[in-house]
């Protein structure tokens, strides 16, 4: 985790985007049953759920493209139903399907969208070029968007989504189909955007990937978001540290002498620490006790273990 110290759950009052009691059905298919979420400025929030859980449907409603059957969505104080245009301009949306503007060049795609958000022609061009440069697409500026590779298309799509400098970014599976390097780059870009104060909601299946880039997570199963219960799970999962000692028996003996909850594993133990600082303190204590610590790190993927345990309950 990048940021563990901050409170994970965003306070709705200062959230950039909130959704409460959102529902949506397609005919007889209840795609979203009940969704509540709040995403905070400067944070990356993950939207995690199995295929068909309703993530894309929820994101479409957050982006102002789909009308919810019930519930309210507010973006920076603007109600999506009452002032849709105002609310929509505050959101940048990147769909999971990448549109193909066949014969348009990359620069034209981004410029057109800048103009579509009401940016003046000269500013739009400058803004488009700035974004293409930022996403390493400058050399493709005058090439048709059609020839781009998938990763490049994804970056173009992201550039298009943030062309009007929205306060909220909604990204539907931006990492799908990307190679490890491109994923790392995406992670950097998203952290940068978050550092600029944007609230980012990102859906993905690659949980290990998300672990390193998100501050908070919203889990969604069969159309319902899991709020507090999931947060608790996640919180606990994040505090579990695996400790490996050269001598497992000595390590366990030292752990028995301290107050933190722990359980034994083959190579050592899993300890529940209070936070990162506490983990460092644990390390110091163990070393002081003469235990040779080979590794001390968070257990696997916190998101993954939360996801799996919630999904297990679901069944």
């Amino acid at each position: 985790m990048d940021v563990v110290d901050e409170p994970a759950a965003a306070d709705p009052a200062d959230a950039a985007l909130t959704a409460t009691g959102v529902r949506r059905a397609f005919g007889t298919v209840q795609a979203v049953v009940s969704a509540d979420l709040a995403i905070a400025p400067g944070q990356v929030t993950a939207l995690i759920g199995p295929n068909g859980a309703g993530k894309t449907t929820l994101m479409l409603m957050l982006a102002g493209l789909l009308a919810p059957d019930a519930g309210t969505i507010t973006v920076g104080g603007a109600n999506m139903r009452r002032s849709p245009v105002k609310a929509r301009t505050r959101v940048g949306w990147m769909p999971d399907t990448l549109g193909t503007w066949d014969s348009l060049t990359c620069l034209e795609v981004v410029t057109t969208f800048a103009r579509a958000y009401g940016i003046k022609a000269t500013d739009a061009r400058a803004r488009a070029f700035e974004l293409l440069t930022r996403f390493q697409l400058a050399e493709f500026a005058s090439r048709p968007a059609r020839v781009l590779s998938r990763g490049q298309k994804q970056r173009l799509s992201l550039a298009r989504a943030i062309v009007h400098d929205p306060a909220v970014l909604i990204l539907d599976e931006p990492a799908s189909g990307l190679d490890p390097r491109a994923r790392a780059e995406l992670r950097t870009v998203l952290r940068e955007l978050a550092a600029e104060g944007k609230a980012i909601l990102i859906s993905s299946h690659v949980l290990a990937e998300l672990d390193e880039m998100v501050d908070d997570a919203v889990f969604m199963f069969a159309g319902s978001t899991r709020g507090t219960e999931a947060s608790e799970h996640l919180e606990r999962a994040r505090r579990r540290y695996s400790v490996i000692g050269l001598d497992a028996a000595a390590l366990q003996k030292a752990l028995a002498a301290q107050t933190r909850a722990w359980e034994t594993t083959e190579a050592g133990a899993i300890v529940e620490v209070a936070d990162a600082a506490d983990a460092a303190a644990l390390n110091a204590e163990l070393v002081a006790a003469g235990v040779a610590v080979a590794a001390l790190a968070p257990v696997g993927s916190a998101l993954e273990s939360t996801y799996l345990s919630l999904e297990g309950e679901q069944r």
Partner: protein
Amino acid sequence: MSTATQARTSRARATMGGVWLVAALELRLRVRSGKWIAALIAFGSLVGIFTLLLAFAVNGQMFGGDDYGVIFGTVVFFVLFMGLLVSPTLTATSINGDRKDGTLAPLQATTLSATTIVLGKLLAAWLASLAFLTVALPFIVIGAVVSHAPFWTAVVTVLVLAFELLVICAIGMGLSASLAGTAASAVLTYLAVATLAVLTLVFFGLGTALSIQPTTTRIYDVSYDYDWAEGEPSIEDCEWREETWEEPHTEYVWWLLAANPFVIVADAAPAEDDFDRNFYDDQTMLGSIKYAVREARLGPAEFQNWCYYNYGDTEALPEELQRAEELQELSAVWPWGIGFHTLLAAGSVLIAIRRVKVPYGKLISGTRVA
């Protein structure tokens, strides 16, 4: 939330800049390719070849004798026919195709209103179809010159052609917004075009057949007791008698013709033809159609003059003069046709706007937003 605020915010606004932005995007997307130029050249060549062949077929030589407006009329009809074939391809897949390509939703997510998007797409398609008309323009001008068509006739004809292309583009737009599949909307748009251009005539024919009913007609004919040994009868030798037979009452079905684009073009073109008498020598092709449609609108005459002997020497019967006057006084048919087509086009555009408006309430079944 009050309904008033909802009405205010959901009322779609179109800005000129936005419409032009979407139109430019469309034109770049669909038009920027060698294929487009090739299509224009092919279109122009076809119209050119047709004009040349027609000129030789009618007169045996180019710029020969009097063709009674056949060359002008036929070239105009050929251009309209080709335009009706080409225009549906410009819009019939423009909205559901974009939906499939995933390029519509990002545009809808911007501040552009549904009205702006639809009008922009329509403008682009219309400009593209006008490009075809422009390519055909030299041949229409040649036709007008060869057929001695008045300047205004040529101008009005081209304007009506442009309008008809806009109508077809609008119909295609409405269908492409309402149907999930691009194949379905393309087929239906062609069906709509066929209905207007061909089926109106077919239904007019069938309707005419259905409208046949016993009708009593007054006939001015040589009296039975006329002695033919005296030679050709004169108008004084004729008298009225009544005859009842089956006659079609086209006045009930003429409006089918008014919906036909070819009829609209023919009827709208100002003609200097003389309809007072049946001097076919003075009639042009488009003018004859205008005359025929007006005859159909008036229905069968209540009298017939069979006393045509020595016609040149005699005055027309008062009844004949009155019918000629009635024909002249009939309001033109084209405003009805253009009015109907305007309604069709406007309705299609409104449907398209409703279907493109976000946030979506009910989705067209079988489509995803993204």
